[in-house]
């Protein structure tokens, strides 16, 4: 099948999927067709030749609307491409649309969206959330037909470019039953990623299998002169995983049935493990929310309706105008995090919250560093619950929602590479296993992930 044909098929599928699960903010059929034609003419065959790619809507795409899920950017069209987009295009990937997300990544269920931005539905049960904040990517990855087991390509593989700050890849991957990969901080350039919390944001990938997630990841890895925090990495061969650790603190509050599924999968893999305690994790969620909101509140201060994004007729002083735009277009969750983040960095409270949180992060990083001298990988459930129903979510308090990040925050805060791999079902809904490896050791992570995948055999 030619790239033009397979792209047409994918567009057809895209329409069906989006109608059912509303996982795209913007679909880019014309752009995809144009790219398919260019690829047909060009002789070059890149690593992603003809593969359909969906992109989380906080990654800037030149000439294509990029909202970051927020009403304040609902009309924003970037003038440049994020570095990851440039790399995908160079390797022949075809971008088919921008996936929906919680505004600026502020959420676990993809229900915190700006006006006009769709809430994605879980392909396993449309009355349930597909997770967040990369909910659109999770739903699309689950919904697109798979060919990874078919030798002859019937339709191009779909892969999704997503992003995690505190668990935004693992959560939707687990809820939607797909593989989510979050890299070590610095492995992927953040240039062109609309910031939530710069010291924690990581662009990652989703696919139906570990190999698929890895395929896209390999394309976007690498140092970028436009992002100082991106790293040059000396590739090391994958280690054979001999011993893993299970951290007790990451099992607390996890649903009983999920725990059962988790232990069953550990048994299936047959890998020797030790149960250990990491007491510093008690403060992980608090530390994460302080650092993340402190940075987020400074990042969001640029949205004043002056140069881009939502605008209104000017009136009053600039302060009046900025306030009116921000009051009108920021959602409740955006306002909550701005207020929280501003508070923790205010003189008089800064020592108590922001600076202390930075110290806790250092301590946790140090503790993980010690652990990886003894263990090759860490395992935990991906999420403490299965995908909740939308009407259940509305009953939860923000603090209860934040607590659901207890499994995903530790590796995200410590900037460690991790995978969420589907391992089974509870109440007909997918359950994920989270695999964490040492910093910059993605090779071991991918190989170990594939090993688990083959032993557990999720269907």
């Amino acid at each position, binding site marked *: 099948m030619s790239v033009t044909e397979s792209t047409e098929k994918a567009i057809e599928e895209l329409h069906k999927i989006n109608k059912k699960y509303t996982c795209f903010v913007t679909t880019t059929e014309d752009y995809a067709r144009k790219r398919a034609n260019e690829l047909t003419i060009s002789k070059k065959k890149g690593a992603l030749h003809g593969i359909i790619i969906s992109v989380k809507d*906080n*990654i*800037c795409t030149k000439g294509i609307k*990029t909202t*970051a899920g927020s009403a304040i*950017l609902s009309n*924003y069209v*970037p*003038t*440049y491409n*994020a570095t990851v987009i440039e790399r995908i295009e160079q390797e022949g990937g075809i971008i088919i649309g921008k996936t929906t997300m919680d505004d600026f990544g502020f959420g676990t269920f993809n229900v915190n969206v700006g006006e006009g931005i769709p809430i994605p539905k879980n392909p396993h049960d449309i009355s349930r959330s597909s997770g967040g904040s990369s909910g659109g990517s999770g739903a699309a990855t689950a919904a697109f037909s798979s060919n990874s087991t078919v030798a002859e390509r019937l339709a191009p593989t779909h892969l999704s470019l997503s992003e995690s700050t505190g668990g935004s890849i693992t959560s939707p991957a687990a809820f939607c039953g797909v593989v989510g990969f979050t890299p070590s901080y610095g492995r992927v350039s*953040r*240039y*062109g*990623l*609309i*910031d939530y*919390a*710069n*010291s924690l944001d990581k662009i990652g990938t989703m696919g139906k299998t570990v190999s698929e997630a890895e395929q896209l990841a390999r394309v976007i890895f690498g140092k970028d*002169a*436009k*992002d*100082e*925090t991106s790293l040059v990495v000396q590739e090391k061969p994958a280690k054979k995983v001999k011993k893993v650790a299970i951290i007790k603190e990451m099992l607390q509050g996890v649903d009983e049935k999920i725990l059962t599924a988790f232990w069953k999968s550990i048994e299936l893999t047959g890998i020797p493990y030790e149960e250990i305690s990491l007491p510093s994790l008690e403060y992980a969620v608090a530390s994460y929310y302080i650092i993340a909101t*402190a*940075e987020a*509140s*400074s990042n969001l*201060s*640029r949205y*004043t309706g*002056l*140069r*881009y994004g939502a605008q209104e007729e000017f009136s009053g002083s*600039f*302060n009046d105008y*900025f306030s009116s735009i921000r009051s009108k277009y920021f959602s409740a969750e955006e306002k909550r995090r701005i207020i929280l983040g*501003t508070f923790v*960095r*205010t*003189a008089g409270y*800064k020592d108590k919250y*922001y600076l202390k949180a*930075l110290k806790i992060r250092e301590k946790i990083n140090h503790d993980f560093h010690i652990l990886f001298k003894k263990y090759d990988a860490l395992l935990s459930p991906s999420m403490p619950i299965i995908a909740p129903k939308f009407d259940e979510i509305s009953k939860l308090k923000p603090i209860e929602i934040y607590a659901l990040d207890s499994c995903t925050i530790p590796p995200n805060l410590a900037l460690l590479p991790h995978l969420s791999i589907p391992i089974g079902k509870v109440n007909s809904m997918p359950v994920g296993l989270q695999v964490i490896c040492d910093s910059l050791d993605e090779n071991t992570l991918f190989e170990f992930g594939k090993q688990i995948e083959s032993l557990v055999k999720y269907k």
Partner: protein
Amino acid sequence: MIGTNIHLMIGLESHIQLATKSKLFCSCSTNSSAEPNENTCEICLGYPGTKPTLNKEVVRKALMLAKIMNCKINYNSKFNRKIYFYPDLPKSFQITQYEEPIAVKGEFSIDVSASRLPNGANLSGAALDHSATAATEKKTIHITRAHIEEDPGKIEYVGGHIGTAKYVLVDYNRCGVPLCEVVTDPDFRSIDEAVTYVKKLFHLLSYLDIIDPNQEGVMRTDANISINGGKRVELKNISGSDALEKALKSELSRQSFLFAQGKVIEQETRMYSEETGTTILLRKKEQEEDYGYIREPDLLPITIDDAFVQDAWKQMKKLPEEVESEIISKYKLSKQIAYQLAFKRGLYAYYQSCLKYLKNSDLLAKWLVGDFLKCANWHNYEIEKCPSSEKLIEFMQMIETGKISEREGKELIKKMFDDPKKGLGDLAEKKGVDLDSVISEVLKENQKSVDQIKAGDPKAINFLIGQVLRKAGFKGDPNEIRKKLEKLLT
């Protein structure tokens, strides 16, 4: 009047625009003569998703500055975000070094009497009155810190000033231009000392090409001033040493007046108004904003080593004293002339480029530190705005060959500065004198001499030439006049 019992304390914070081709965190040009908002990109406009990357050239210039301030270098300095809302600040935060500045604890020596600094050194000039040999009393000003930060954009108040303008225009060309803020301890005990410090700093920084004195607003100073141990008042954003002097004088008399009346001087931020000649209240202490500083997560710490520091210092230009010694040993000029030639930024290089085409190095030096420098200082011109060296070579050749007299030379130099576009030929043209009509007048008035010549007395013609020259204001070539006279009289 200011009583003798007033104890004055001043500390200064100078925002110094480092001379680099591109901005601090993007590749936009720093050229200030561009059209509004021409020098902007996604990064300096703070578009969502963009990230800053550090321009290493800024670090080099900051290290040069740290050297002349005798600061301790911080080998691991960091950036922070200073968060506040203002239309000239696209990200609504300024990237600055708050916790860990690049340099700390410096010392800068000044001559305590401002009069000892050459008169011409008025924020761009050089010396005319040479008094460096006079006995000087040195005073050390302690430097608290020097840190790197980005400049915000520029606001134009249309049809008025901050209080009266109906609307403002924002130009982001300046946004992201590299600044180094130098903070002093409150060491100044007189206005003269503060002004002397700013003048000396400006001169040295421009001399060493750390700043470009031709750029507008290249050094802006905030002054903290208090009297008799009272609360300090911060005067914001003062450009240049003249304005600083006026602002400090006006604020000192305001505080002295309050003090004399037994009133309390409150801690506040004020600005100096050129219009009213007074300082105006901007905000009181309680209205001060909390900037909620956090670390800048997109930038790595500036990690430098000794090799980097030494390399930056190796690229530094020579100091005026070093240039002076070089001039004395190389050209055998007097100490006084060498001092003046060395002091004015760029003058020595200008001297050297002229000398390639001239014979008399003494004569050139004499003219340069004389009338040339006088004109440059009168116009407040940096060397780049002075007549080109090609023009000056042409001028000196006219002097060397005696084509023009010294007196004519002095006039011509003035014209070269006043009318920079005109060629030397046009400027030197004897304008306003019609030689033929002057000659016919002189002939009419001196019939006796005419008769003598006609009678065969050759000496009489010299008298007539002298008369013509006098009448023409000495603007004429004696040989040419002789020829004309001979033609008419024979």
